[in-house]
């Protein structure tokens, strides 16, 4: 039986090869994603080891507001520089140093373009002090540590990426205007060249304090214990010494570079990649099941013969299972090797998509290998169950004649209807070959469907996501159009997400043609037991930004009156705040603000403006909250929006490389541009499903051609040319692919429709991305044409005589 099983695999090389490739793809994806993300997770863990080693105690200011990344550039409380000498003087401290740390220090090139896509890590540290340097997270690669007002050290990845060398001139901006620096050194973060997509700019402490608006202040004081003093003891001593206003933790617990966030991000990537791998495996399983059932159908006679010479049902079943096992093992072994290569490819792909991740020392994990091999062998075995059962059912005296087309089930009948509809143009345009192809696709709808399903899975995903993405984009657009009446929005280059420098807004206000500039600033605050995002608006801003009041009244000029605040209905409901209540907000630095809720405003669930839970008048906001940055600025011009006016504003912001000016509509689009990255990842999935489904279509067509040898011979005898035969096969292939894509689009529409309906009260619109759906159909057609190449050639080459005389 075993010899027979292998002889059959050898005899049908194409079919075997296609099945092995299907398994290989799935296993390669699972291995690849596990290898990649395993490497990334290890890299992130080893980063926190190397970055925080030596920091026995990290001291920063205690804040009523937690460390949330909800608001970019939110105020962080700082310590007076005097705290450094206080820590240094504490018994048990070996060495102490103050550090300034920000995440908006943008390095810019000559052309004014910002390097990287954030976070833009900026560090001020007494790098000249050799004893203190062991507290720093950085290692010098080449050049010298930055000292003096004009020196900056940058990370090796940024240097590589931008082609920067020692001594090159760069500009660095942090909230304000960019200032010129010279590259004194190139550094690594811990052991690695890159920390995700982050760029790093290092200065000596006084330079950073001046640049980052931290004169006389530091963000943290880092300390190492004397030899003989345990780290925990040191922390207890320090906590007692510094009092309640300071917080003392270990370097790792403080995690000032937010490496835990990086690990979480890697975790998300891992889930996406695994989902991709699983999609590939499922799609591959359909291909294998299909290939094996066709093998069984084709071997009907051999199986009947085997049974008549005494093979038991079990033996027949075992033969089919054995074949699938062989396919699974072969595919797994090749897939493992391919997966390792794929991991490196995916790392580059993510870099290309703007999601660079740490990938030092890539290696295959034992868990990944086991998972991949188990998936690669078990899934084909499961796929073989049905064909094996069918093989075992072949009667010893099975009639040796052409089997009638079986009667299709409900799913088959549905596929038949779809094949009939998508095939109508083929019948119309393709003449006899087209209309025969349509009927061929309809005659075994079960087979057409199971061949097409691989494509269906991928298309369903893409269609659903594309529809939701375009719905979100449509929502964003209409929200901005409804609420913002400004001529221009000034924000940060970072897809319009990042905060705008208020210095830049002031520069814009002075630009020719600008009537006024409104500011919407954003910060975090504590409100009772919870936290809230607080916005400060001035009168210029409210003249260009409308609120939808649920209850209460607007203050004069749309701005809340002094001692008043607007609260969004959602926040109010969630935290049981009513109109007329008095609320007390506490800023990150501990400043209290008390206000009466004068109005409740409507906030859509999908909020692209993101202007906070609580709105305060600028005059009150500025007394407690951060004023260096604005969520965005709104610009009203005297002559309305025009390309020359936009250029004028752009010029006015020349000194602020991160700043960006855009018409509100475009800005709204930019706000949701990240969705396109999501779509890009899903489209990679489609590419995968297309490749696997190609294999399935090739397989099915090749078998159909063999099965229809006599029919094709008859057609040839009746005067069909080779070209017409090839065209017939090609049409059938395209139709199969279109059935798959069609089912997928319908399923995607249904899924997206249901989700949109569920989310309609939150304002998600249903927008049909016609372009993408048409593109999917075109991809399906192309896939069909490619898949048909080999089977069509076989059919065309078929010898008429051999075909008509075959018994």
């Amino acid at each position, binding site marked *: 039986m075993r010899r027979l099983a292998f002889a059959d695999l050898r005899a049908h090389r194409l079919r075997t090869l296609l099945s092995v490739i299907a398994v290989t793809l799935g296993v390669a994806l699972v291995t690849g994603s596990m290898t990649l993300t395993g490497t990334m997770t290890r890299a992130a863990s080893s980063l926190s080891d190397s970055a925080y080693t030596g920091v026995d105690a990290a001291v920063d200011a205690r804040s009523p507001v937690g460390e949330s990344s909800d608001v970019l550039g939110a105020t962080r409380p700082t310590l007076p520089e005097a705290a450094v000498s206080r820590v240094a003087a504490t018994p048990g401290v070996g060495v102490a140093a103050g550090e300034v740390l920000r995440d908006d220090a943008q390095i810019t090139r000559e052309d004014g373009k910002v390097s990287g896509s954030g976070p833009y890590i900026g560090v001020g540290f007494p790098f000249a002090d050799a004893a203190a340097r062991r507290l720093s997270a950085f290692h010098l690669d080449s050049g010298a540590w930055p000292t003096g007002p004009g020196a900056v050290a940058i990370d090796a990845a940024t240097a590589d990426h931008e082609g920067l060398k020692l001594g090159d001139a760069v500009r660095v901006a942090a909230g304000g205007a960019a200032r010129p620096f010279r590259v004194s050194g190139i550094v690594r973060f811990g052991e690695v060249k890159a920390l995700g997509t982050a760029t790093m700019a290092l200065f000596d402490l006084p330079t950073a304090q001046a640049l980052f608006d931290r004169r006389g202040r530091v963000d943290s004081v880092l300390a190492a214990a004397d030899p003989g003093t345990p780290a925990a003891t040191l922390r207890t001593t320090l906590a007692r010494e510094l009092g309640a206003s300071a917080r003392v933790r270990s370097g790792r617990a403080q995690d000032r570079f937010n490496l835990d966030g990086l690990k979480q991000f890697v975790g998300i990537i891992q889930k996406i990649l695994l989902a991709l791998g699983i999609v590939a495996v499922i799609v591959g399983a359909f291909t294998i099941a299909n290939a094996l059932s066709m093998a069984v159908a084709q071997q009907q006679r051999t199986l009947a013969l085997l049974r008549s010479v005494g093979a038991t049902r079990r033996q027949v079943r075992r033969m089919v299972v054995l074949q699938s096992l062989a396919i699974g093992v072969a595919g797994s072994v090749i897939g493992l090797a391919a997966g390792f290569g794929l991991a490196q490819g995916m790392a580059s792909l993510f870099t290309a998509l703007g999601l660079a991740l740490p990938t030092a020392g890539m290696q295959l994990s034992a868990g990944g290998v086991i998972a991949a091999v188990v998936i690669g062998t078990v899934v084909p075995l499961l796929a073989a169950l049905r064909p094996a059962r069918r093989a075992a059912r072949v009667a010893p005296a099975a009639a040796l004649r052409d089997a009638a087309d079986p009667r299709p089930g409900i799913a088959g009948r549905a596929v038949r209807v779809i094949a009939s509809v998508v095939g109508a143009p083929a019948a119309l345009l393709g003449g006899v070959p087209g209309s025969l192809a349509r009927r061929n696709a309809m005659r075994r709808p079960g087979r057409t469907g199971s061949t097409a399903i691989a494509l269906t899975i991928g298309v369903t995903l893409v269609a659903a996501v594309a529809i939701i993405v375009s719905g979100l984009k449509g929502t964003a657009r209409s929200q901005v159009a409804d609420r913002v009446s400004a001529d221009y929005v000034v924000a940060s280059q970072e897809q319009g997400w990042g905060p705008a420098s208020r210095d830049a807004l002031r520069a814009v206000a002075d630009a020719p043609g600008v009537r006024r500039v409104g500011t919407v600033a954003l910060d975090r605050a504590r409100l009772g037991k919870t936290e809230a995002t607080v916005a400060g608006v001035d009168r210029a801003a409210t003249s260009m930004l409308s609120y939808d009041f649920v209850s209460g009244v607007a203050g004069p000029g749309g701005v809340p009156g002094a001692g008043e605040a607007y609260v969004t209905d959602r926040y109010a409901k969630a935290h049981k705040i009513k109109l007329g209540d008095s609320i007390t907000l506490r800023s990150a630095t501990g400043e209290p603000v008390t206000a009466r809720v004068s109005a409740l405003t409507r906030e859509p669930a999908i909020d692209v403006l993101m202007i906070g839970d609580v709105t305060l008048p600028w005059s009150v906001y500025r007394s407690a909250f951060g004023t260096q940055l604005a969520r965005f600025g709104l610009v009203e011009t005297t002559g309305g929006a025009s390309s020359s006016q936009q250029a004028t504003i752009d010029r006015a912001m020349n000194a602020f490389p991160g700043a960006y000016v855009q018409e509100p509509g475009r800005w709204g689009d930019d706000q949701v541009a990240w969705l396109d990255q999501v779509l890009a990842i899903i489209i990679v999935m489609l590419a995968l499903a297309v490749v696997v489904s190609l294999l399935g279509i090739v397989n099915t067509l090749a078998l159909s051609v063999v099965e229809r040898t006599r029919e094709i011979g*008859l057609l040839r005898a009746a005067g069909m040319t080779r070209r017409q035969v090839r065209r017939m096969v090609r049409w059938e292939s395209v139709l199969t692919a279109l059935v798959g894509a069609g089912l997928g689009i319908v399923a995607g529409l249904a899924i997206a429709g249901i989700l949109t309906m569920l989310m309609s009260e939150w304002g998600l619109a249903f927008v049909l991305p016609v372009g993408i759906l048409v593109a999917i159909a075109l991809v399906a057609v192309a896939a069909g044409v490619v898949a048909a190449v080999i089977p069509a050639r076989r059919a065309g080459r078929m010898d008429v005589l051999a075909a008509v005389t075959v018994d």
Partner: protein
Amino acid sequence: MLGITLDRPPETPVTTSVAVSGSGLARRYGDADTAVDALRGVDIDVPRGQYVAVMGPSGSGKSTLMHLLAGLDVPTEGIVRIDGEDLSGLSDDRLAKLRRTRVGFIFQSYNLVPTLSAEENVVLPLELAGERVDSAWLELVLDRVGLTARRDHKPAELSGGQQQRVAVARALVTGPAVLFADEPTGNLDSRSGAEVLGLLRDAVDADGQTIVMVTHDPRAAAIADRVVFLADGAIVRELHSPSEDLVIATMAEVTA
């Protein structure tokens, strides 16, 4: 000397009186060592309007001869002409197009495309050629084979005899120069077989159709105008309008 006798129906084109001819036909299969001569030098002319039956024991080369004459196979030596046109050197495409219009086929079994209805099967050669179907002619052909009522049925819904009648209609619909039939009654019961043979005979008598039929069945051969006997790849006997008994006797003689 006054009376003029017409030896063919006046509507037949006067280009040539021979519908299909083979001269010096030889066909060798396989390579040098294992070569088998299926046909060794056969000359045959089939005049227009003649019904020729080809008989012979298994392996005598009768099927090979038919395949060569129909352009389904290429002779190792010799020339085949259909309607005066030399088939040697014609491209595969040319041969396919020739089959659409000048040649009709009926096989022993599996004659119809299962996805097409009876009528669609009949008009298939015309459709392949992109020709307009003359509906009056189609009605006539369908009526003659008695399938007007079942024209929309799929082959699976027709009996074997009915399927073979559809095949006859398809072979006739283009008005081919010659109709080739390979054991057309081999898979049919005797009544259905007789019906099919009757249809073929009618086509010869009414329209002057030329037919070349390979058969084992002496009763089928007896319907033909001329019976050619093959043995070992050569023509060994010929009979004209023979009786069934004579055919049986000659077969026995040839096989012996």
